[in-house]
């Protein structure tokens, strides 16, 4: 069967917060869902089914919470399923929604993501998140994901000369962008010195190099071509999807060669043992597949905006390289030279990203899709009541959702239709 074109037609996001106990997960999703319904002037009768994504059964302490969302939204008895894949839960859920439409099974689908992390304190949350590392070999060593990322950052610095100040610049940029995003959890005007002077979490990453726990929900409505243009005059095309994986344990990552993008050659990486623990091979593979499907051969010049999974400042720098926005080893100077700034070479995380907009895990990848949708629709002003973050002439964007220490990564290319 021929793959059908898939469009995003509407989206909604709740304001991300450290804790909002006034709403449970069902009501939170309902708020984002109703925003999406109202924005496209559609209703539940226009939705053929759903994909519901949330990460942790431990945070939720409610199995089949996806079924409860389906019920609360009034979408029963239509098709629905739950998708889970660690930090990439939202991105994988979005791609699963894509597949429902592309396959011809459904004509419209609501992809709904949420996480309520405030049910436990931060220490317990760290423990729950670390249960997404090998519980026999990695978890008992400290139960702490920031520790794993810190070791990757140290190796990236050794391999490529990346500096802690370059990492800090990611934090300055993303917290600064979030000042103009009313949905963001941690807008902040800060300096490199503020980042370096904040408490050390796991050397070399400080409190401001690391995202925080969030409560939030996000909804994206996807549709087939016919249905999309019935629903809105301004749908956004999903041009390509890619998903990569890697060994769960960092220890098991090989030391091989780089899977090259069209803009790279073997001689670029003569002495680089890849991915080791300095790079995310899953991110590279996700980008490679998505670029091939979207016909992108020169990512830095063919993408106008990127929303990527900056759970840590270091992982944003590593991800520039995986996505081929620069060569491996150039991530630090990429941010230092302002290329990822709002009006740089390609705007990276204009929303503030996970560091500043927030990271309610199951919602995060869908939040990226919604912000990207608004960028490509040129409706940032309408939704943010401020057009500061609108990238002028934004035509094509990439969203990137990442799990584990780069264990699952989902990359999706979205493109304005006109």
């Amino acid at each position, binding site marked *: 069967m021929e793959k059908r074109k898939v469009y995003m037609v509407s989206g909604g996001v709740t304001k991300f917060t450290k804790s909002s106990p006034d709403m449970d997960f069902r009501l939170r999703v309902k708020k984002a869902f109703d925003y999406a319904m109202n924005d496209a002037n559609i209703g539940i009768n226009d939705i053929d089914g759903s994909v519901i994504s949330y990460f942790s059964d431990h945070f939720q302490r409610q199995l089949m919470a996806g079924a409860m969302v389906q019920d609360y939204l009034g979408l029963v008895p239509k098709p629905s399923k739950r998708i889970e894949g660690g930090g990439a839960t939202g991105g994988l859920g979005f791609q699963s929604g894509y597949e429902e439409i592309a396959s011809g099974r459904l004509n419209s689908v609501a992809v709904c993501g949420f996480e309520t992390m405030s049910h436990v304190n931060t*220490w317990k949350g760290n423990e729950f998140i670390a249960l997404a590392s090998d519980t026999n*070999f*990695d978890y008992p*060593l*400290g139960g702490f994901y920031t520790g794993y990322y810190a070791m990757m950052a140290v190796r990236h610095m050794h391999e490529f000369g990346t500096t802690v100040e370059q990492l800090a610049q990611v934090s300055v940029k993303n917290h600064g962008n979030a000042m103009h995003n009313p949905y963001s959890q941690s807008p902040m005007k800060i300096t490199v010195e503020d980042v370096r002077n904040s408490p050390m979490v796991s050397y070399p990453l400080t409190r401001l190099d690391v995202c925080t726990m969030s409560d939030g929900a996000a909804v994206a409505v996807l549709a087939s071509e016919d249905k999309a243009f019935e629903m809105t005059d301004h749908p956004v095309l999903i041009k390509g999807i890619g998903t990569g994986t890697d060994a769960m344990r960092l220890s098991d990552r090989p030391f091989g060669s780089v899977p090259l993008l069209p803009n790279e050659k073997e001689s670029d990486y003569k002495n680089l043992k890849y991915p080791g623990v300095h790079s995310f091979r899953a991110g590279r593979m996700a980008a490679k597949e998505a670029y091939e499907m979207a016909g992108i051969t020169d990512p830095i010049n063919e993408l106008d905006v990127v929303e990527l999974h900056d759970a840590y400042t270091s992982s944003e720098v590593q991800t520039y390289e995986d996505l081929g926005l620069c060569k491996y080893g150039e991530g630090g100077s990429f941010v230092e030279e302002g290329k990822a700034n709002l009006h740089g070479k390609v705007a990276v995380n204009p929303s503030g990203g996970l560091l500043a907009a927030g990271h309610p895990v199951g919602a995060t990848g869908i939040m990226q899709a919604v912000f990207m949708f608004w960028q490509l629709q040129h409706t940032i002003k309408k939704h943010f009541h401020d057009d500061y973050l609108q990238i002028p002439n934004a035509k094509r964007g990439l969203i990137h959702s990442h799990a584990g220490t780069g264990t699952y990564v989902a990359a999706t290319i979205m493109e304005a239709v006109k």
Partner: protein
Amino acid sequence: MTLNPNAKLPENEEGTTVFNTDPLIIKYHYEMDYIHSYAQDSSFFTALGQKKLLGSKCKKCGYVYATPRSHCMMCGAETEWHELPLKGKVHTFTTCYFSGEEFLNETPFNLVMVEFDGVNSLFMSRLIGAETEDMYIGMPVKAKFRRNLKMSITDVYFVPDVKEEGKK
């Protein structure tokens, strides 16, 4: 007939911890014990009691892992146990000042990834006996083992190998 319209639940003095009333937020306790099997990786853990580190070697392609893997990630073939050297080098490191709740009382602690000669992949462990500023990539380290096992990956840990350090 046993119908009893006067049936009543017993009352007791066990209450609920309430953090807030609007919205109503209560404390909910949740705890469990697992009957956890290390299954095909069991020999790795029991070998720690004999001060041995067991990795795996692919019978077909010869790839050597510093971790137990009953089957090879490169070719899918079965592996055999492969005794690792007890001396290696720091491939990368960190010091954690925060952690998951279970390990908070152990902070700050060092995590390292160790590389061994003749082994294709790494081993993650704790490094004790060194501060952040003492650690570096390439630092010689050696494995030590608990005398009284906990049957956990933490039964092995690494310390600075000062003898190797002195040779440099």
